[in-house]
């Protein structure tokens, strides 16, 4: 049995757990906890503590694992551990919360420094009326035009599939360029 893994990262409450839940064939093994801090509780009820874990079986001898990182900064020691041996990574950003963009950018740069693997950025919660436009997010996140920034609604399986596919296309494209 062969396994490969991808990492889903991003700030607190960006939608990482939801994203993995949308496509995983097992119930996401989530290490969620009730939130105790007041400021964070106003955003949501539960947060991922160590990691999320989802699975997609490809065929008899290939399985894809999706790892979601904990969003809260005090668990960032997990990032480097989870990034080990990843095929690529996805940075989830909550399009409705510009206050998290700076952190998203910092997470992106940190993961980029861990490993030179392909990545894409998912502009999540594009279904919400306060969502920022993709073009504005691209500049605020300082993504150059070659970086894929994809619209996403984590609860909508089709957009999640699209994000995963775009990452896989980038992985394939990178293999082809490095061949030359």
């Amino acid at each position: 049995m062969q396994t490969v893994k991808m990492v889903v990262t991003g700030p607190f409450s960006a939608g990482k757990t939801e994203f993995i839940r949308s496509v995983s064939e097992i119930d996401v093994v989530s290490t969620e906890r009730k939130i105790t801090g007041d400021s964070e509780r106003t955003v949501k009820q539960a947060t991922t503590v160590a990691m999320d874990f989802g699975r997609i079986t490809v065929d008899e001898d290939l399985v894809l694992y999706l790892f979601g990182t904990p969003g809260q900064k005090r668990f960032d020691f997990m990032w480097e551990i989870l990034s080990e041996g990843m095929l690529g990574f996805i940075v989830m950003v909550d399009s409705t919360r510009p206050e998290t963009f700076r952190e998203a950018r910092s997470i992106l740069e940190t993961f980029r420094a861990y490993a030179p693997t392909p990545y894409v950025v998912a502009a999540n919660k594009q279904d919400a009326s306060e969502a920022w436009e993709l073009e504005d997010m691209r500049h605020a996140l300082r993504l150059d035009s070659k970086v894929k920034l994809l619209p996403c609604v984590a609860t909508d399986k089709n957009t999640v599939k699209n994000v995963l596919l775009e990452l896989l296309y980038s992985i394939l494209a990178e293999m082809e360029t490095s061949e030359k």
Partner: protein
Amino acid sequence: MALRGNLRDFTVTQLLNLINLANKTGTLLVEGPNEVARIAFRDGKLAYAQLGQEDNRLAAILHRANRLTTGQLRVIQMRASSLSDKELGLSLINANYLTQEDVLNALHAYFTDIIRRLFAWVEGTFHFENEMLPPEDRITVRLDLENLIIEGARQLREFEQLQDEIPSLDMALRFTERPGANLQKMNLSVEEWRVVSYISPRNTIQQIAAACKMNDMEIRRIIYGLLQAGLVEVVRIENVPAAVEKARAAAMPAQNKEEQKSLVNRLISRIRSI
């Protein structure tokens, strides 16, 4: 749709950067604790600015720039108050009292001064009204934002924030290919030029700092300014092929190139079928 937020999360410099890069047209409204600033842009260039109730009619601006005496200002305010700014400007130019350049310089100075004052605001909210521009009868300018952005970025002093902006010094930098991002036009300091001369996808930020004898904080501050002005971008260090292969080998059970590709293709068909 919504370009709105809080100054705690986006500095005025970062907003100018965004407007510049996206070539936006419209008005940025910044609501501070005491007053509201309205800054208008056309195609990502500064066009017009107004701060609170401050008199920003042309006559008042020319007076501030010492182009009109207090007596002249009073005459204009009493006798020519029905003239629009454009009409007043034309009359002064036609009378050979001022040149068009004098008028534009006074406006540039006043509008950039408002932006400089805005840099000091840390509390407040902002939103951007697309396509909203000042009334037709006002004189607008076209001023590049890069120099103002660099100036604003120089004022960022918080180490934590700089650390967030540039978390890893093991990355490299390269010049952006953005048209209009022109180094020649920039008012860079000696230290900034020194850093610029080492920028290459082969040098890590750490190496540039060592070459320029700068500490982490100093190099981060300078690079932050260059990043904000859209002159450079952070890239992974070159020599990538080896590092990329290594990372891929760590991620893939199959070691042979063709097997690796077939594995990715199997993943693709599986995801498509979900």
